[in-house]
């Protein structure tokens, strides 16, 4: 069966690409300088890495029961990863776990400063 061989090859290629992207994510986690940059490595190449690995499994198995489950895995990964990244990123920013000398611009700084200044000085301006 020649078709089977082609599916095998495609599956192997996807598996390799997925593994390489995950490896790069791991290296990024070590090499990137601050918490926010590391969040990119921790959440992002992983999405495509996972997609390629799931694609490899789908090409290998080729039945609807597996594909529907893989679809759910991908969907919930895509729904939850940004939320987790946002929560950690937000906490990292507010606790100043970032290296400002490596930032080109920070258009959020003024807003946060103003908000915390308002909170600290005048309870009347506290947002409800």
């Amino acid at each position: 069966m020649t078709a089977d061989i082609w599916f095998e090859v495609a599956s192997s290629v996807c598996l390799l690409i997925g593994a390489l992207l995950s490896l790069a994510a791991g290296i990024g986690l070590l090499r990137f300088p601050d918490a926010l940059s590391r969040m990119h490595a921790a959440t992002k190449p992983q999405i495509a890495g996972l997609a390629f690995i799931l694609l490899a499994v789908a090409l290998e198995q080729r039945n609807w029961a597996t594909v529907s489950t893989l679809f759910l895995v991908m969907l919930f990964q895509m729904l939850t990863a940004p939320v987790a990244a946002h929560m950690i990123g937000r906490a990292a920013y507010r606790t100043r776990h970032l290296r400002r000398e490596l930032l080109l611009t920070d258009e959020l700084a003024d807003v946060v400063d103003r908000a915390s200044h308002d909170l600290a000085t005048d309870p009347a301006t506290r947002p409800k």
Partner: protein
Amino acid sequence: MSGVRGSIWRQVPLLVWLVVLWLFLWDQVSVLSIVTGLVLALLVTRVFYLPPVELPDRVNPLGVLLFIVRFIVDLVRASFQVAWMAIDPRRVPTSSIIAVQLSTKSDLSLTLTALAVSLVPGSLIVEADRQDDILYLHALGTETPEDVEQVRAGVLAVEERIVRAIGSRDDVRRVNLSRAERSLPPLITGRRQSAWESRHPMVPAEQYTPEGGYPE
């Protein structure tokens, strides 16, 4: 459409989706799985009550397809870019925190834009201002101010693709106005859009509320 009847019809898409999810988990379609799915869906929506989301009043299937294809292309390309930044031994990437003022006011567009932007590597949502519809994102690998502007334009392009796909008529009008300010042609025009706009006067951004945008 008001009161109890309205709230039930609003929940139908959510119920259908929960049953489909249940069928996917069981990998089979049978009377038993559909009935148990329906019972569970009703139970879940009663116990874990969520505030209703304003569903869009228009859907463009071609726009949805266009958005998904473009999203996958962006995702894969940016994944390799970030992967390369991670292993490139010559330099440490410079980042920026960028404020992007979105054009639309609806919760759904804001959420979907934030999700899509967040999933594409190289950009991470640090903060979202629902009141003023501003997304603050951390962008990796912005070496020059031009890169920053490119990221900003990229986010607005994502928003426009989402609005083209499933934006409400109000979203479309706001995007068209915002594009007009930048002297760009409107995103979508049409008889039904103009008819809707003539029947619904523009609500200023400061007075817009997600719950009571436009009573029918």
